């Protein structure tokens, strides 16, 4: 595969044309995986012997937490592409992804708090993972606000890219906080390449379907939102040209 061929999608027109075809496919796949995974997890999995029925919250909490971190890492990659190669589509893709990442972080924090109350006896603790997730959420808000605050698109892309680089520390910290500090309340990862550390198979398979659903949901939504950002940018350029001439 010729990796250089990927750069053709940095052309806004080519990006819009290609995503026109693939967007319905990703949307349908996302809906199918989410519906199957969530129904499977909610209706057809047993209670856990320790957590009771609250184990059903993992089908939302774990995929949302994974996405919260990985959306920021995707933004990091697209921001680096902007910094190095100055492709507008990559900067706009990062902008399009940020609200999705913020919502995923809120879902992870909210479901974690709702699960934590009956299990830990508290909605919130200043635990390393929880705290780093809260900071990640604040970074998402700052990133979105910075894009909105700066009128010039290129300046906004430059500054938000720098913010994204800084925030990446917290995205990684959110992922590895339970490994760095073990004094927190949060348990270890539910998913691991080491099969012994994973949740039991009966919970694991519907969880995998839910994760696939969240990933596909993100892809479909980020494509849709990037198309919108490309159009909005063109609109601003046309309006500026009209004002000048």
């Amino acid at each position, binding site marked *: 595969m010729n990796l250089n061929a990927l750069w053709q999608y940095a052309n806004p027109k080519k990006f819009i044309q290609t995503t026109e075809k693939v967007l319905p496919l990703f949307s349908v796949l996302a809906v199918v995986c989410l519906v199957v995974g*969530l129904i499977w997890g*909610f*209706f057809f999995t047993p*209670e856990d012997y320790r957590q*009771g*029925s*609250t184990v*059903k*919250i993992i089908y*939302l*909490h774990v995929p*949302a937490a994974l996405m919260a971190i990985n959306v920021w890492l995707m933004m990091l990659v697209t921001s680096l592409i902007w910094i190095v190669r100055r492709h507008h589509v990559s900067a706009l893709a990062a902008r399009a992804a940020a*609200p*999705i990442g913020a*919502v995923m972080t*809120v*879902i992870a924090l*909210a*479901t974690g708090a*709702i*699960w934590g*109350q*009956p299990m830990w006896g508290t909605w919130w603790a200043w635990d390393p993972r929880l705290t780093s997730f809260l900071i990640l959420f604040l970074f998402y808000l700052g990133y979105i606000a910075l894009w909105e605050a700066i009128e010039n698109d290129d300046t906004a892309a430059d500054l938000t890219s720098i913010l994204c680089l800084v925030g990446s520390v917290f995205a990684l910290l959110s992922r590895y906080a339970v490994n760095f500090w073990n004094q927190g309340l949060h348990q270890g990862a539910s998913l691991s390449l080491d099969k012994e550390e994973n949740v039991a198979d009966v919970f694991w398979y519907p969880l995998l379907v839910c994760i696939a659903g969240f990933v596909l*949901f993100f892809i479909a*939504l980020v494509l*849709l*939102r990037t*198309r*919108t950002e490309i*159009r*909005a940018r*063109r*609109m601003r350029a*046309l*309006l500026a*040209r*009209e004002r000048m001439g």
Partner: protein
Amino acid sequence: MMPDLGKYAEAVLSSYAVSLALLIVLVWLSLRRSAKVAKQLEDIEQKARKNG
């Protein structure tokens, strides 16, 4: 059909309600803005073509 969620029913159901509501609002806002921007751009391009 509804599984017996026992004493944790409120926690489980509220988790699903909050998460699904947030996802639906996100999709709705994204679709609404997409349609609005596409329409505005079309109007501006049409105007620009008319003005030469």
